[in-house]
């Protein structure tokens, strides 16, 4: 599903990263760990197509996203990749339901509130659908961003420190949720984190050095 080869990225001649090849199959979870400054977020942005590698290839399905230009990269990302960020950010002026509808629309799918409500139901936050996102608790916000990452049934989910701002209890909840949903939606999940707690939950992991 996801396969990178000889990825290299340079912010400047002094700051550059060589990444180990990574591989992640549908329904699997891959944990990428490493201390700060080792290029975790850079790798995640490369996988998301937000950054373009200086060398190497990133295959998602049959597409090498390193070769996509701006507009097609945006479109591909919208359709095939869901991203969960460390701190949940939403479009402030829209409520939970509308944020998810926006995600559907931006990816080029039809806006389908029944589908969104089913998703919120699964994540146990359907009763928050009409609220502005700023009024939710951290845990609820994280659930909404997971819902947003999943709503378009992407082939790949990227999670950037999804649990680092959560307490132990919520951390385990979110991890389980991600795992469940990955299996349920048959997507590949790559989590970038320095959160040691996650290592106990997921088997596959790569450490960036």
């Amino acid at each position, binding site marked *: 599903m996801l396969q990178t080869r000889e990825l290299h990225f340079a912010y400047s001649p002094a700051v550059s990263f060589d990444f180990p090849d990574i591989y992640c199959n549908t329904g699997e979870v891959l944990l990428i760990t490493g201390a700060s400054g080792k290029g975790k977020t850079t790798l995640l*942005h490369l996988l998301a197509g937000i950054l373009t590698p200086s060398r190497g290839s990133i295959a998602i399905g049959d597409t090498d996203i390193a070769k996509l230009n701006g507009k097609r990269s945006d479109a591909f990302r919208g359709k095939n990749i869901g991203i969960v960020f460390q701190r949940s950010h939403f479009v402030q002026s829209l409520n939970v339901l509308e944020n998810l509808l926006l995600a559907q629309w931006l990816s080029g799918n039809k806006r389908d509130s029944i589908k969104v409500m089913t998703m919120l139901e699964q994540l146990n936050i359907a009763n928050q659908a009409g609220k502005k996102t700023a009024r939710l608790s951290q845990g609820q916000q994280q659930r909404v961003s997971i819902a947003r990452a999943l709503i378009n049934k992407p082939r790949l989910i990227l999670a950037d420190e999804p649990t680092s701002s959560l307490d132990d209890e919520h951390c385990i909840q979110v991890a389980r949720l991600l795992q469940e949903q990955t299996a349920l939606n048959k997507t590949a999940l790559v989590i970038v984190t320095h959160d040691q707690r996650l290592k106990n939950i997921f088997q596959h992991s790569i450490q960036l050095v």
Partner: protein
Amino acid sequence: MILKLAIRNLLQKPLTTLLSWVLLTVSVGIISMLLLLQGQFEKQFTGNIKDVDMVIGAKGSPLQLILSAIYHIDAPTGNIKYAEAEKWMQHPYVEKAIPLAYGDSYKGYSIVGTTKDYLDKYSAKILTGSLYESDFEVVAGYSLAKKLHLQTGSQFYSTHGTDGHGEEHKDKAYTVTGILQPAGTVVDNLFIGNIESVWKIHEHHHHDDNDGEAVNASNAGSHGENDDHHGKELTAVLLKFRTPVGSVQLPRIINSQTNMMAAVPAIEMNRLFSLTGIGIDTLQYVGWGIMALSALSIFISLFNSLKERKYELALMRTMGAKRVDLLMLLVLESVVLCIAGFIAGILLSRLAIWALSASFESSYHFEIQPWTLNIPGGVQLLVLTLLLGMLAASVPAIKAWFINISKTLTHE
């Protein structure tokens, strides 16, 4: 969806949005009100001038003569002798001359004694009743008949002077024989009858008055003389020339060689417009100034919110939004605001004019249609407002175009 998001974003910051909106509304309101006023003002004034190349009256202010003889919104300059005026009315250069005797009124509306030519000049047609036939019969203009609730057969006593506070001429009552169709000209607000009525009303006034009323033999020496035309007086004569040479030569000759005054409406009205134009121009500059201010306010609010919303915009990009979507979003936010301001501004100007129209009507008998769909300069104003909106949004939109998603997401 982008439109919805744009509107939501505007509502997210109600106070900032309100400020920009109010500024826009006021500026569009002022400008469109002035355009409408000026348009209707000039249309009404120039419409009434039609076919009047020159006005003869007593010496005084030429502008006053025009305002009183054509528009009936000023006091008459005085009287002239019929005999003396007649010489010029039959001058070979003159195609048509309409004598006027006025100076009396009923409830502030002028009673004009004239010939049927006057009605023909304004193409006035009878709506109900019939045309006046004998003395002390008048037809009433549509607007004044409506306002004063006059009908065919109504009777009234005229008042000396035009301000409605003069002495009543109790001995003779006028009878309304007909109501004229609405014409959109000065005729709508006049009583029109024959000249003889005006003369007869004043027959028993044996005092000298030179305040503009057409009086029988106001000259002390001719008191009590017989009632032929030669002792009669007029207030003004409207003339139309056969040839343009007339308007060059006759005013000069009349002004220098007689004790009457000749005024050319076109010249006097131009003078008036250029005088009032200064005020209108100044107000218009104020309007444009406020509009520039509102553009600045939109720009600042978009620019400021861009700092906060950068992450949000980058986030939308990660969800598949294209650069052009973000560009559209910001431009739409500004344009939606501008359209809202434009619509509110147009409504505001109409409301203001509607509120003013009552006072305009009572003091100048000048009717303005506030609810006309034909907004002079409306299209240009709309286009300008939209351009301003796009201009205000352009810098923020370009910044949004070049947002570095990766950087923005890492350094929130």
